[in-house]
C-alpha cells in the first residue's frame, strides 16, 4: 500500500536532484529549472500531507496551488532578469556575473 | 496656576520667541527681550503676592515626576531666602537687558544668552531637587562663558575659560557630594528630593564620607562665592566681561555660592560645618581684609569693584560660618538667626549695590571714555552732576553708610556674628575702615579735584541710563531706612535653617 513515506521519499530525491541542478549548472535558466524541480518536490509533500495527514480544508492543495502560482511568478521575473542580463552582459553564465565580488 | 514654573520658564519662552526674529532687526529683538525680562520680573512679584509671609518652610511647591526610576523629579518651591533672591535676579536681569540696549554686536545671541541665563539662575533658586539644581547650576555657566568669551574685553578668552573651568571643577566636586548623599539613602527610598535628603541627613554619622561630601559642596560654593583662595577668577572675569554681564555675574552668580551654603551645606552637614566653622570664618575674614586692601591698590575701576565684591562676600561667609558654629548650642541660636538674616540681607544689598556700581562703571566706560583707569578721571562731579550723585550714593552704600542698604546688612551680620565669633567679627569690622578708604579714594580720584580737560564735555546720564540706575538707588535708600518688611520675610527662612541646625 503506498503510504506517505513513499511520496516523501520521491519528493526528497526530487529535491536533491533540483538542488544538485541549482548548485552545479552554470546557466541561469538551468538553475531556474532546478528551482522548479525543488518547488515541485515541495508540492508533492503538500499534496501528500493533505491526503495522508489532514484532509480538512484541503490545506495542502491550497498551499500547492499557491506554490505553483508563486513558482510561475518567480520564473517570470527570473527569466526577465536573465533576458535583461543577457542583453547587457552578453552572457547568462552565472559564474561570469560576479560584479558583487568582495 | 503653576506660577513658579511659569516664572522659571518665561525667559526660556522669550528665548524661543527670539529665535524667530530676524537677526538684523536689532531694535525689535531688544524690545522683545526687555518685554520678557519685565514680564518675568512681574511674575516674580506675582509669586511674592502669593507668598504667605507668616508661614515658615517651602511654599508654592510644584512637583512632577521627571525620571521616577531614579527618583529624580521636577520639584520647585520657594521660601523667604530663595524668593527674595529670585526677585533680585529678575529685577537685575531686566535692568541689565535695558542697559545693554546700546550693545549692537551680535544682538540676537546676546539677548538670547541673557534670557537663558535668567532661567538658569531662577532655576537654581527654585530647584528643590538636587538633580534639577545641578542642571540649572551648570546651565548658568554656559551663557556667562559666552557672554565673557564673545563680548568681553581684550583678554576675554583667558578669562572666560578660567571662569568656566574653575567653576566647573567646583561643580564636579559638588556632583560627587550629591551622589554620595544619594547613594547613602536607604535603597528603597532613593530620591534626589532636597527636603527629603535634608530631613533624612543620610551622611549624619559617616565620618570621612560626610567630610568628603561637605568639602565637595564647600569647594563648589567657595569658588562661586568667591572665598579667599579661590577668588582669582573673579577680577579677570569682571574686567573682561561686558558691563551687563559683569552686573549679573556680580549681583547674582556670586549669590549662588552663598545661597548654596545656606540652603545645602548648613542643613546637610551641621556637625562637619561646625567643625570647620573657625577655618571658614578665618578665610572669610581674610577675604574681607585682603579684598579691601587689594582693591585699594587697583588702578582698574572694574577690578576695584570686583575685589570689593570679594570683601562683601567675606562678610556673608563670616555670618554663615557663625551660624554653622551655633549648631548644637541653643543659646547661640538667636545670634545665628540674626547673622543669617544679615547674610541674606548682604546678598541682596551687595546684589543691588554692586550691580549699580558695575552699571556706573559701564556708563562712563562703554559710551563715554573707554578707559577704566581710576587715575584717568578727575572732577567729574561738576561735569556729570546726576551721574556723580548716583555713583557716589552707590559707593557710600557699598562702604556701609547707615541709612543705606549696605549698613543694615553689615550691622546685622556684625551684631549676629559678634556673639559667636567676637574676635573674627572685630577683625572684619576693620574691613569697614579699609573699604571706606578705598572707596573714598576712588571718589576723590574720579569725582573731585580739578576736571580732567579730556572729559570736559561728557554728556550726563540719558533717560535710559537713569532708568537702569535710579531704581537701584531708590531700593538702596528704601531698604536702608526701613528694612523691616524685607527682614520679616528673610527672618522666617533663617529661622528654618537655624531650626535645622539645632
Amino acid at each position, binding site marked *: 500500500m503506498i503510504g506517505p513515506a513513499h511520496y516523501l521519499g520521491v519528493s526528497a530525491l526530487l*529535491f536533491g536532484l533540483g538542488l544538485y541542478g541549482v548548485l552545479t549548472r552554470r546557466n541561469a535558466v538551468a538553475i531556474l529549472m532546478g528551482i522548479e524541480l525543488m518547488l515541485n518536490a515541495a508540492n508533492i509533500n503538500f*499534496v501528500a500531507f493533505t491526503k495522508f495527514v489532514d484532509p480538512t480544508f484541503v490545506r495542502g492543495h491550497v498551499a500547492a496551488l499557491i506554490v*505553483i502560482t508563486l513558482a510561475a511568478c518567480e520564473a517570470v521575473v527570473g527569466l526577465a532578469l536573465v533576458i*535583461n542580463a543577457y542583453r547587457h552582459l552578453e552572457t547568462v553564465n552565472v559564474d561570469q556575473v560576479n560584479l558583487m565580488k568582495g | 496656576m503653576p506660577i513658579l514654573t511659569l516664572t522659571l520658564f518665561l525667559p526660556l519662552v522669550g528665548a524661543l520667541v527670539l529665535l524667530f526674529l530676524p537677526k538684523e532687526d536689532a531694535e525689535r529683538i531688544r524690545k522683545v527681550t526687555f518685554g520678557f525680562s519685565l514680564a518675568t520680573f512681574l511674575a516674580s512679584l506675582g509669586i511674592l503676592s502669593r507668598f504667605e509671609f507668616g508661614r515658615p518652610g517651602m511654599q508654592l511647591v510644584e512637583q512632577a515626576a521627571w525620571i521616577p526610576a531614579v527618583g529624580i523629579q521636577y520639584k520647585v518651591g520657594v521660601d523667604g531666602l530663595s524668593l527674595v533672591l529670585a526677585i533680585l535676579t529678575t529685577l537685575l536681569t531686566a535692568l541689565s537687558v535695558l542697559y545693554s540696549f546700546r550693545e549692537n554686536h551680535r544682538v540676537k545671541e546676546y539677548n538670547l544668552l541673557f534670557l537663558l541665563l535668567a532661567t538658569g539662575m531662577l532655576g537654581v533658586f527654585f530647584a528643590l531637587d538636587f538633580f534639577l539644581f545641578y542642571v540649572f547650576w551648570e546651565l548658568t555657566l554656559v551663557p556667562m562663558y559666552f557672554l565673557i568669551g564673545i563680548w568681553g574685553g581684550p583678554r576675554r578668552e583667558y578669562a572666560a575659560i578660567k571662569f568656566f573651568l574653575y567653576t566647573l571643577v567646583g561643580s564636579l566636586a559638588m556632583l560627587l557630594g550629591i551622589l554620595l548623599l544619594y547613594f547613602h539613602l536607604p535603597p528603597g527610598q532613593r530620591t534626589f528630593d532636597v527636603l527629603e535628603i535634608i530631613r533624612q541627613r543620610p551622611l549624619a554619622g559617616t565620618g570621612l564620607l560626610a567630610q568628603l561630601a561637605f568639602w565637595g559642596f564647600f569647594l563648589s560654593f567657595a569658588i562661586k562665592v568667591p572665598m579667599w583662595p579661590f577668588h582669582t577668577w573673579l577680577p579677570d572675569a569682571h574686567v573682561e566681561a561686558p558691563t551687563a554681564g559683569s552686573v549679573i555675574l556680580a549681583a547674582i552668580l556670586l549669590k549662588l555660592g552663598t545661597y548654596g551654603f545656606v540652603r545645602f551645606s548648613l542643613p546637610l552637614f551641621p556637625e562637619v560645618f561646625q567643625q570647620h566653622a573657625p577655618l571658614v570664618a578665618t578665610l572669610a575674614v581674610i577675604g574681607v581684609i585682603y579684598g579691601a586692601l587689594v582693591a585699594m591698590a587697583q588702578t582698574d575701576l572694574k577690578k576695584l569693584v570686583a575685589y570689593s565684591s570679594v570683601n562683601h562676600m567675606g562678610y556673608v561667609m563670616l555670618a554663615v560660618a557663625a551660624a554653622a558654629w551655633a549648631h548644637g548650642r541653643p543659646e547661640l541660636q538667636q545670634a545665628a538667626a540674626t547673622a543669617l538674616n544679615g547674610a541674606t540681607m548682604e546678598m541682596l544689598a551687595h546684589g543691588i549695590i554692586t550691580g549699580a556700581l558695575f552699571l556706573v562703571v559701564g556708563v562712563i566706560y562703554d559710551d563715554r571714555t573707554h578707559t577704566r583707569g581710576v587715575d584717568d578721571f578727575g572732577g567729574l562731579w561738576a561735569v556729570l552732576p546726576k551721574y556723580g550723585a548716583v555713583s557716589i550714593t552707590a559707593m557710600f552704600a557699598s562702604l556701609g553708610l547707615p541709612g543705606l542698604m549696605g549698613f543694615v546688612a553689615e550691622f546685622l551680620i556684625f551684631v549676629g556674628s559678634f556673639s559667636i565669633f567676637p574676635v573674627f567679627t572685630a577683625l572684619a569690622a576693620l574691613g569697614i575702615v579699609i573699604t571706606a578708604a578705598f572707596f573714598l579714594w576712588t571718589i576723590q580720584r574720579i569725582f573731585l579735584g580739578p576736571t580732567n580737560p579730556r572729559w570736559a564735555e561728557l554728556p550726563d546720564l540719558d533717560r535710559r541710563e537713569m532708568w537702569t540706575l535710579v531704581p537701584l538707588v531708590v531700593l538702596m535708600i528704601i531698604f536702608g531706612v526701613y528694612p523691616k518688611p524685607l527682614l520679616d520675610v528673610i527672618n522666617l527662612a533663617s529661622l528654618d535653617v537655624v531650626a535645622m541646625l539645632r
Partner: protein
Amino acid sequence: MNAEALAFYALAAMVLVGGFLVVQSRNLVHAAISLVPTLLGVAGLYVLLNAEFVTAIQILIYVGAITVLILFVILLTEGATGLRVRQRNEQVPLALLVCGILVVLFLVVLLRVPWGPPTGPMPAYNPGAVGRSFLMPYVLAFEVTSLVILASLVGAIVVARREG
C-alpha cells in the same frame, strides 16, 4: 503489487529520470524538454493523491506556461546556440556530497516520523473544496498571491522590455 502501487512507481520513475535528465543533460533545450515528463509525472502523482484540481492546474501552468516560457527564454538567449559551452561549474563534487547528505537526512527525518492515519475523509468533489477553503480560511493568502502575480507581471514587463 496492485495497480495503484504500479502506477506510483511508474510515475515516480518518470519524475526522477526526468529530473535527472533536466539536471544532467548537456543540451539546455534537452533539459527544458525533459522538464515536461518530470512535471507530467508529478501531475500523475497528484492524480494518485486524489488532487484532480491541482493536477489540472499543474499541467496547465507548469507544463503549459512555465516550460514554454523557459523554452522561449532559452531560444531567445544564446543558451540554444552556445551548446559547446561548459555547462557544469567547478563545485560539482562538493555539491554532489552536500545534496547526497541532505537527501539522506530528509529521508531519515521523514521516514522516522510516525505518520498516523488521516484525520478525516477526503472531500469528494475537491475542486469545490479547494475553492471554498481559498475563499474562507485562506482568503488572505489568496489576495496576497494575487498581489504577487500583479507585481511580478508588471516587474517582468518593465525589466525585460527592450529600451527605446
